[in-house]
């Protein structure tokens, strides 16, 4: 692919701190290669700001390969930008045109408060996992790996769900700021595997209770989460979560 150069106008959300008032500020990204990634474009803008002694735009990123889940911003109204099935760091500038105006904002959700500029606090996801997103097995107590056969189809479905990178785009995309896709991915992974069955009922109840407690909204089957998920986690997982939850409520001995 031959590369071209782009000149772009950026409208970027700047917010000094959690309680500060934020606003869009205008920046110009000049001479950007179409081969550059979206984040490399931001790096160039930031380096120019730094050279001038101005504070660069603060945003999070790490692996730049679409797997760590650190990056995430709303680009022209869509979490992770205009393409399906990718993270912000995988977005490349060849998908933009010379002269484009690009709006860049943080993920917005009550449970993800803004820390600074485009950085939000997603520790609520960790808290949900800490509440029950695991199989309780101490190191050293595992049986021989092949003593637990797993139906291949289930292993594949579990892997589809386990592909979640915990970026939070599902929450940012949802008008209710619901975390159902995230929670359902973890609940599904373990519900589909024999190893997950001993804690099947207690897990789903604890995770859902924690999710509600942390201020995430309810699911009203809009489907924006699935559309924006960079790992294309399917909404059928939410259906499974609902089944698992009702099943647990009927079957479980756990007190509320």
């Amino acid at each position, binding site marked *: *692919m031959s*590369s071209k150069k782009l000149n772009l106008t950026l409208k970027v959300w700047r917010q000094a*701190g959690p309680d500060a008032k934020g606003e869009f500020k205008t920046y110009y990204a000049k001479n*950007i*290669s179409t*081969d*550059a*990634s979206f984040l*490399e474009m931001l*790096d*160039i803008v930031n*380096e120019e700001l*730094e*050279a001038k*002694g*101005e*504070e660069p735009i*603060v945003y*999070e990123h*790490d692996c*730049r*390969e679409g*797997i*760590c*889940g*650190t990056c995430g911003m709303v680009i022209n109204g869509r979490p992770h930008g205009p393409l399906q099935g990718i993270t912000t760091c*995988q977005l*490349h500038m*060849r998908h933009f045109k010379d002269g484009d105006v690009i709006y860049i904002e943080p993920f917005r959700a009550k449970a993800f408060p803004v*820390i*600074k500029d485009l950085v939000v606090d*997603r*520790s609520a996801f*960790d808290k949900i*996992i*800490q*509440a029950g*997103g*695991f*199989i309780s*097995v*101490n*190191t*050293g*107590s*595992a049986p021989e*790996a*092949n003593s*637990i*056969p797993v139906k*291949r189809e289930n*292993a594949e479905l*579990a*892997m589809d769900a*386990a*592909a979640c990178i*915990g970026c939070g785009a599902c929450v940012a995309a949802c008008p209710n700021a619901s975390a159902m896709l995230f929670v359902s991915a973890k609940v599904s992974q*373990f519900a589909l*595997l024999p*190893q997950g069955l001993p804690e099947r009922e207690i897990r789903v109840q604890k995770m859902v209770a924690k999710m509600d407690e942390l201020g995430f909204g309810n699911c009203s089957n809009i489907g924006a989460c699935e559309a924006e998920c960079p790992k294309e986690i399917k909404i059928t997982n939410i259906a499974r979560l609902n089944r698992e939850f009702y099943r647990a409520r009927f079957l479980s001995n756990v007190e509320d």
Partner: protein
Amino acid sequence: MALESKIPSGPIQEKWTNHKFNLKLVSPANKRKFEIIVVGTGLAGASAAASLAELGYNVTVLTFHDSPRRAHSIAAQGGINAAKNYPNDGDSIYRLFYDTLKGGDYRAREANVYRLAEVSNNIIDQCVAQGVPFAREYGGLLDNRSFGGAQLSRTFYARGQTGQQLLLGAYSALSRQVGLGKIKLYTRREMLGLVVIDGMARGVVARNLITGELERYSGHAVVLATGGYSRVFYLSTNAMNCNATAIWRAHKKGAFFGNPCFTQIHPTCLPLHHDQQSKLTLMSESLRNDGRVWVPKQKGDKRPPNQIPESERDYYLERIYPAYGNLTPRDIASRAAKRMCDEGYGVGETGQAVYLDFSDAIQRLGRKVIEERYGNLFQMYEMITGDNPYEVPMKIYPAPHYTMGGLWVDYNLMSTIPGLYVIGEANFSDHGANRLGASALMQGLADGYFILPYTIGDYLASQKFIPVKTDHEEFVKEENAQRDLIKRLKSINGKRTVDDIHRELGRIMWNYVGMSRNAEGLQKAIQMIREIREEFWRNVKIPGNDMDLNQTLERAGRLADFLELGELMAIDALHRNESCGGHFREEYQTEDGEAKRDDENYAYVAAWEFKDVGDWVLHKEPLVFEYVKPSTRSYK
């Protein structure tokens, strides 16, 4: 100070078992009286923290990420080795040990490597029990594939996301202990200084990356699991925030640095394709199971790959190394690619790339099978390059990927500072001069799940600890030192950006301390690194406030450390007058350009003691080979 490797005596098969019996134990009731600080939450850190908490220790975990799940282990793609021998192709613990030792070009300890192979099977059991969705056969049992440097299939995998799945397993175990209150988790904290009291590691000073405040954490032992230092090259496959700061600051407090020049340049990465690039992307080595590497037979052939007929292609790995073909180990495959490009056979706009071609495999197995095996990798490739690898061969080139070197540790994984343990990529231990594919995940989890939890108990049980609180004068001193350093960085107020200087350091490292090195270049590099280091301290510019989320300041602190570490890497590479594994000295090669090892003079671990910036003292730990006689490594 003499280096004591503490390798147990006895036959290699019994060393670890006997050693475990001889280690002192901490009784269950006493474990809760000990506080252990773990820095880093990758495979090694998360697995160690979880396992220690399960045993009953109180664990404090620090990570600079917003969540423990972000650590760079997550990006490992291809798989994890174990000697299960499920495919019935003749694998055994001894063979995994042998392959790993040979793959490392006989520059690792036999006893460590044997232990690694020995616990490899337990790791798979543990991960399966945690719900890691490994690939399976239709009968429901686990599937394996092959990796470089092995003639059998021993690699377990979860699509192209094995690192992610293993890390999420360890992360879930860690999260469980956070929920149970046995682990206190502090995210967005970067360790800046190690606190040593009466010669023992007793705590750390970390910066709260949100508020900028310096915080003190005290404990009875400190475990560093902070990864490797490939970002010294600026462009590497490492995540943008990977850094050497924790291990470097510990090094400056007395922990020796082992084999700093042993760095791995991975053969299958995306070539540099524009001048604004921030990092390089790895394409899993597993691709070499089905992809064939080639260049045109004609120098400077500019035809599109599909128009170059079969007879005019040079499948050079298959030609030169028929026994292993496209699955030769990484160091050898990388150098072969460089040689081809240096001789003018390279492809693409820059001539700094070779083809990795799947057309044969697609013809043989069908597109669907290839999609199942590598779908996400192909998608990743297309996303970055705009080319579709189902139709056009991938273009690849070697890139810095992993560092075998790291802080020196003994058999117990303890550094030269008592009470300071170093695990995973951060230590120097098991991979010698070259790491085989799918062995990093194995080592990280071996250290964290199955080795450190035993060895650290011996230390805790055998020391007399004076009570130490965070108001101890050494904590105050360390915090002040770190505050002064930050003030000093902020006060430079020069003209150049942090990244600008980092890129310059990276170019020096890549050109002179990269895939191929020589004495003259290394001497030049040492000089140039000193100059750029001075330039940094005179002319860097860091906007913003230090009592705030300030990413430029974070990067500046890390670069300051890379600027010192880079020099030590060059010094180490210059002193090692041989070629071995990833360390290739042009003066020491065979007639056909292969690495020429010097076992008579260099069969040792180079452990460097820090005296001052630019001033190190070399200590040698001889490597003794009782079981595998070092031979010329041949993959032909």
